[in-house]
């Protein structure tokens, strides 16, 4: 109600304490700018880390073997590995595949809707597997069908695959508003590859291809031998660790001349892949929190100093009719004014900082709806910080006006 009643006189009086006021305003502005950007970057990281793969991640294990020397008979050995792994109790299915979402390697290819296209207008991630990748990954086949045994080629074959399953994102990019089934894809040659199925989602292994190509992938029926490929096991979620422990022995029985490169649950794979994002988000969070604390302390410090400095003035105001509430409101209003100036400056700074980040790193434009969040944060921070000193000010007895000389 009587909030802001003192705005005029406060501005008036602040002009006479310009240095201190300017310093706290700048501190608020800087904090606002940095925290706004930090919140934005944290949010981006969180969204990234949350990115869906389309896979039934909590049922999957990945095993990689390092091949030694030539892979003479590798396909046959791979077949035996897959059979042996599938025989472990709790394993539902096993595939050998060239790459996985959030793995380290990625296979990419240009693709076009016309033959011999030198431009290859679109880039897709190409998953190669000779087994039931759709079933083992747990992909959602939303149109068409899965591969049939006679359609499967071997990686060593020179023939190009006749059929492909594509992700919905790929289908929409290549054939907008059309039924993709039966359409032909060309991987830089005259040879058409017909689309026989569409899966709802199959993420690319990594960020390759940029923002435009997110989710653009195809599956080709090509049998992969261990070495370049890894084995993906779909298992009972509860038995993941138990099965992972048996893998070494099972594979060693097939051939002792190989080294197990790595074995992970898919959950761990995802965690590792986004480790940097997680660290970055934490770092920004800690920096923001520290900045906010420092700014709050700055507000408390300056307000306490001003309360101390104005003890007499406060007593005079009380003598002239100010209630305790009026005194509290005086300091709250003063803080609100300083915070508002700081926030307005901070918003401009935030955009400036964002422009620099956009220029230097791959950062998006700061969304406008973040600004009110930043403003609210700093307003409430200021009000909370100033409350203690303001209450101390309100406790100053009015008699101080007559008792001090």
């Amino acid at each position, binding site marked *: 109600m*009587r909030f802001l*009643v*003192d705005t*005029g*006189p406060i501005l*008036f*009086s602040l002009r*006479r*304490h310009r240095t201190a006021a300017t310093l706290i305003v700048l501190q608020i502005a800087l904090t606002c700018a940095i925290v706004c950007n930090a919140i934005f970057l944290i949010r981006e990281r969180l969204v990234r880390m949350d990115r869906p793969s389309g896979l039934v991640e909590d049922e999957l294990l990945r095993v990689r073997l390092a091949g030694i020397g030539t892979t003479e008979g590798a396909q046959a050995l791979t077949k035996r590995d897959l059979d042996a792994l599938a025989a472990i109790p709790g394993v539902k299915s096993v595939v050998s595949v060239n790459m996985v979402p959030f793995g380290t390697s990625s296979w990419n290819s240009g693709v076009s809707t016309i033959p011999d296209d030198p431009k290859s207008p679109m880039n897709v991630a190409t998953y190669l597997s000779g087994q039931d990748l759709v079933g083992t990954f747990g992909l959602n086949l939303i149109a068409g069908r899965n591969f049939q045994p006679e359609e499967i080629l071997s990686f060593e074959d020179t023939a190009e695959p006749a059929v492909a399953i594509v992700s919905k994102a790929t289908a929409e990019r290549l054939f907008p508003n059309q039924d993709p089934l039966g359409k032909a894809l060309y991987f830089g040659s005259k040879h058409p590859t017909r689309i026989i199925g569409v899966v709802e989602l199959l993420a690319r292994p990594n960020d390759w291809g940029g923002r435009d190509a997110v989710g653009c992938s195809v599956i080709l029926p090509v049998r992969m031998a261990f070495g370049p490929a890894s084995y993906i096991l779909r298992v009972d979620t509860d038995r993941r660790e138990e099965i992972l422990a048996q893998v070494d022995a099972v594979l060693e029985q097939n051939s002792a001349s190989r080294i197990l490169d790595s074995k992970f649950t898919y959950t761990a794979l995802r965690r590792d892949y986004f480790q940097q994002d997680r660290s970055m988000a934490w770092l920004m969070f800690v920096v923001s929190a520290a900045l906010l604390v420092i700014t709050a302390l700055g507000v408390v410090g300056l307000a306490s100093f001003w309360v101390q400095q104005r003890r*007499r*003035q406060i007593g*005079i*105001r*009380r*003598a*002239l*009719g*100010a*209630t*305790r*509430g*009026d005194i509290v409101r005086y300091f709250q209003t003063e803080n609100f004014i300083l915070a508002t100036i700081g926030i307005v400056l901070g918003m401009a700074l935030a955009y400036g900082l964002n422009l620099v980040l956009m220029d230097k790193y791959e950062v998006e434009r700061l969304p406008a709806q973040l600004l009110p969040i930043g403003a609210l944060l700093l307003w409430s921070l200021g009000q909370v910080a100033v409350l203690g000193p303001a209450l101390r000010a309100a406790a100053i*007895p*009015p*008699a101080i*006006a*007559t*008792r*001090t*000389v």
Partner: protein
Amino acid sequence: MLRMKDVSKVYRTEVIETHALRELSLEVREGEFVAVTGPSGSGKTTFLNIAGLLEELTSGTYTLDGVDVSSLDDRARSRLRNEKIGFVFQSFNLIPDLDLFANVDVPLRYRGLSRTDRHRRIASALERVGLGSRMKHFPAELSGGQQQRAAIARAIAGGPKLLLADEPTGNLDSAMAREVMQLLEELNAQGTVVVIVTHDPEIAARAQRNIHVVAGIAADLERGPALVRAPAGAADHHQPTA
């Protein structure tokens, strides 16, 4: 206007109790100009603070303009202070960050008056004390006499019925002191009750009535000395609280 009955004020600190006022009873009527005198430490300022609702009394009753103030909370006391009382202090107590206009504005804002009403009152109060042309000056840019006149303008802008002044001329030379006294007398002539604490016999002589306070007990000099209960020579009295 102001009636105190058996008012006592005890200041308690950790080690001692100071009886600043002891069962003080007195009355100030409408239209009066009263000077309060007495030795240092006798309780004059304490009396003025209680009269002006700046401090609460320890026991007794105090009625201000018909209102028993002992039961009022901070809000009501602040409102009463704002509407009924004007203060003039020995050290002027203008707010250094604000110019004269804004200084006079302080009590009017707490009153919640409209902008135009406030402006009118500020201008007329400053004109009244002869500082109409100095509204935009800061206190530090004025002489002591001018500052005290500005403080009087601030005290009267709200149209109080009671003006309380604690040694208003204490920091002024005699010419300036006379100027300020004249102003207070004019205000009194226009109907404001003035209670002024002073050490200056010349000033006390100009008041209609003198109240002499010794050791926290008031004696109304016009009605004859009644210092029966005052311990001779003791300006104040300390007792261990044990």
